[in-house]
């Protein structure tokens, strides 16, 4: 039988267990951050000696000392610009349709379920899609255009979801005011909803595009080349991007290439960091306005 003193002793134990658990839970939370810090420091230390102006302005080379990251960097910028060009209008239009026009019927339900499912499809499967449809079906070859179209489909679900959230955040009263003044549905969307939702849409777009900057697998699958020593001249040009160049350097056995890969990662992370910084600044400005 439990006496009061037993209970008190047990309570002490229960509390001690609780205290131990909270320490473990905290440790679990920061573990990921510690690994993140180790990763960043490791990459920076390894790549540090190779990060200079020459690295940024030279083409990849078989000789590590002469190798640079110019063509992948420019390739990444091309790819992300084309991807934005294709995916932004389509995703915003799709989001407008789903939020402002669609009736609750089977078609809307199908589109919504479908977008949720697409968001979970592995990126390499998009690569196979791009290979089958853009590279071979449409005969675009291993071009920037094929890569950008593939990336556009890949980030479309994320973009639509973000744009829908931004549109949903616009207060309904503003729509009602516009409609009451005799505005048509499209006039309401164009003059009231979109201007209000725009910063939010932009933030979501930048975040989704930064995913496209870091993606490697789908581009490998569509056959983006790993060694390109020239700058793309247009959308039909062959290309390489930062992550592919990093992968290429990583898969070589020589130590110098491994360090080049680290330097490339620093550049890639810098590009992503600046994209995210822009997104955060935009979001803050949006929050101030509302």
């Amino acid at each position: 039988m439990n006496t009061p003193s037993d209970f008190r002793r047990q309570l002490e134990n229960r509390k001690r267990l609780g205290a131990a658990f909270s320490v473990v839970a905290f440790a679990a939370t920061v573990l990921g951050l510690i690994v993140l810090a180790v990763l960043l420091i490791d990459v920076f230390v390894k790549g540090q000696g190779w990060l200079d102006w020459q690295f940024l302005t030279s083409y990849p080379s078989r000789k590590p000392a002469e190798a640079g990251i110019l063509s992948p960097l420019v390739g990444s910028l091309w790819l992300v610009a084309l991807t934005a060009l294709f995916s932004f209008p389509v995703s915003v239009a799709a989001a407008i349709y789903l939020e402002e026009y669609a009736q609750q019927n089977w078609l809307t339900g199908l589109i919504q379920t479908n977008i949720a499912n697409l968001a979970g499809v592995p990126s390499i499967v998009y690569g196979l899609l791009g290979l089958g449809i853009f590279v071979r079906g449409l005969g675009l070859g291993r071009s920037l255009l094929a890569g950008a179209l593939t990336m556009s489909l890949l980030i479309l679900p994320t973009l639509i979801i973000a744009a829908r959230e931004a549109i949903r955040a616009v207060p309904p009263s503003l729509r009602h005011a516009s409609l009451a003044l005799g505005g048509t549905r499209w006039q309401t969307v164009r003059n009231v909803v979109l201007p209000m939702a725009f910063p939010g849409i932009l933030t979501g777009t930048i975040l989704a595009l930064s995913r496209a900057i870091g993606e490697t697998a789908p581009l490998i699958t569509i056959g983006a080349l790993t060694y390109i020593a020239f700058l793309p001249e247009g959308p039909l040009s062959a290309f390489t991007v930062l992550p592919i160049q990093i992968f290429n350097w990583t898969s070589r056995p020589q130590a110098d290439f491994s360090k080049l890969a680290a330097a490339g990662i620093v550049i890639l992370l810098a590009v992503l960091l600046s994209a995210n910084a822009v997104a955060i600044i935009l979001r803050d400005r949006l929050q101030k306005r509302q």
Partner: protein
Amino acid sequence: MKAAPPVLTGAAWRKISEGAINAALLACAAVSVLTTVGIIGNLLFETLEFFRIVPVFDFLLGLKWTPLFDPPSFGVLPLVAGTISVSAIAMVISLPIGLLAAIYLSEYASRNTRRVLKPLLEILAGIPTVVYGYFALTFVTPLLRQFVSETQVFNAISAGIVMGIMIIPLVSSLSEEALNAVPQPLREAAYGLGATKLEVTLRTVVPAALSGVTAAFILAISRSIGETMIVLIAAGQSTTLQVNPLKAMETMTAYIARVSLGDNPQQSVEFKTIFAVGMLLFSATFVLNLISQRVLAKYRQVYQ
């Protein structure tokens, strides 16, 4: 600017243009449906071509995967075993740590701590996977080799560990959402019965959020199965059927990427294998995502 003389009345013109806009917007929304049709159609077409050469059961039940040898063998199970092994290692890391982090953020952390820690954890999810692959190969593997000398240069375990760390934010943010959705009165009732904080958390809150947490776990499994770059870089290319995590293994995703990198003619059987493997990969993740959505829908019904 002077307006052109109206051919149509304002109302009629507006009706037509509004209809056209509606149709154009619908067409954009339909792109997503077309994408799914494209994915399935493309994979199915190539896979059926492949099955004309290789019988379905040889593919699904075969124990030897040597499409590039002579004579070739197309048993996909070694790739499946590699995928499951790496995924299992990743789950051993990400599920408990992700859930603990979610519990900490939802039940223990102060508002300010949460505001700092959550975005920092999200950074983990934003690091490109090629960077994780590099980290697994050049940092984690050498570290492991210092302790366990029989670890190979390319091995499943460091790929799995790093993948697990990458997936922590996915598990923690979705689980935290589920824990947050548990109504406060439930916690208060448990406290009222004399439970300590730990008991409230583990015996009341977590069980009440179980379906949401389960959905997060399933999504994490699906995510780990579909991850490519970490395994491509760090796990090696061995397609021998074995489960020693210290040795090299190849996953379905890494195989697809490796064949894409090579220079097999696009009409060859070897090349068609990547679509068959892709079909299997797509089906597996699709089913997992569907289950996850169902489980989640169920838990939403309970509390809303």
